[in-house]
């Protein structure tokens, strides 16, 4: 029997429900990904919490894997060095945060752009030890990057202050507010 002329034409199967098709494709990919992850977990193992967090018991995160010459320095170890003229504390935080409060006598080399200028490294060339710090609510990315750049520039002994400024203040070690007095 012929269909009446005014009957609606059937929609092509390929375009009938594009949203359903896309969702089905996405679901398949996620399921395959989960199966692959399960297989990988069985064959290669899944990183344990201890392995992941074992080296990060404090607020500062992972060590500088790419730069083994840059070492951590603990708060108690860093405090006596504040009185040593051959040691420079370098604050990696933005200028306004630095001015709100910083380690006494520290210089500010903000890591806003992820780079440092030649003047800063040249100014620090005569320094025996450099200690970088930032706010460590995370993995100390700024102080680590700054330390890496300073080590790359040829400075001999660069360390990253574990715990950064928050721990320094918690320990009630000397701090001051205001603009940088000795910035390069």
């Amino acid at each position: 029997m012929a269909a009446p002329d005014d009957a609606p034409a059937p929609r092509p199967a390929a375009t009938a429900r594009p949203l359903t098709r896309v969702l089905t494709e996405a679901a398949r990919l996620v399921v395959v990904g989960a199966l692959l992850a399960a297989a990988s977990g069985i064959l290669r193992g899944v990183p344990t919490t201890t392995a992941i967090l074992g080296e990060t018991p404090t607020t500062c995160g992972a060590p500088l894997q790419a730069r083994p010459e840059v070492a951590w320095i603990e708060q108690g170890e860093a405090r006596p060095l504040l009185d040593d003229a051959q040691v420079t504390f370098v604050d990696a935080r933005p200028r306004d945060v630095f001015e709100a409060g910083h380690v006494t006598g520290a210089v500010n080399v903000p890591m806003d752009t992820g780079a440092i200028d030649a003047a800063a490294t040249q100014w620090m060339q005569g320094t025996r030890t450099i200690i970088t710090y930032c706010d460590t609510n995370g993995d100390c990315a700024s102080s680590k990057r700054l330390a890496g750049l300073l080590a790359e520039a040829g400075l001999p002994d660069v360390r990253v202050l574990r715990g950064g400024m928050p721990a320094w203040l918690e320990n009630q070690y000397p701090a001051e507010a205001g603009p940088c007095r000795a910035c390069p």
Partner: protein
Amino acid sequence: MPRVPVMPRLPAKGRTALVWGARLALAAVFLGAAVPKLGDPVAFARDIDHYHLVPAPLLGPLAVGLPLLEALVGVALVTGVHAQGAALVALVMLLSFAGGMVQALARGIDLDCGCFGSALAARVSGFTVARNLGLAALCLPVLFLRPGAVDARPEDSSAPPGA
């Protein structure tokens, strides 16, 4: 008022080029992001942990699963098998990552984004958020455009047939 969307007005060749370009660019990014993470899942798990979003027991499984899903999405986009589904997964992932970055910035968390594992360290910033949103926008042509398809719709679908 004629209901003519902007995208379908592109010529068929332009649409094909746009979809292919978006697919290849996204595939390159996803495969490039997956490989270093697959090589060092512990480091990637630490990167995830720095966002302070994921409970510790989920870090390991996520560090194994996410790069595999990224790799799968990359392969699907290159081969064209389930490409639209892959674009949808990519879109959701990119927007989720951007959301994670925004919350980190809002909470003052200073961290590397971990976007490309240890291969390309980049501190989370407005730039990394914008980069993710740009990549998310690249998913849209793959999702909504049919490469080479001829747009047979009349310019004004409200006009009566034969008018």
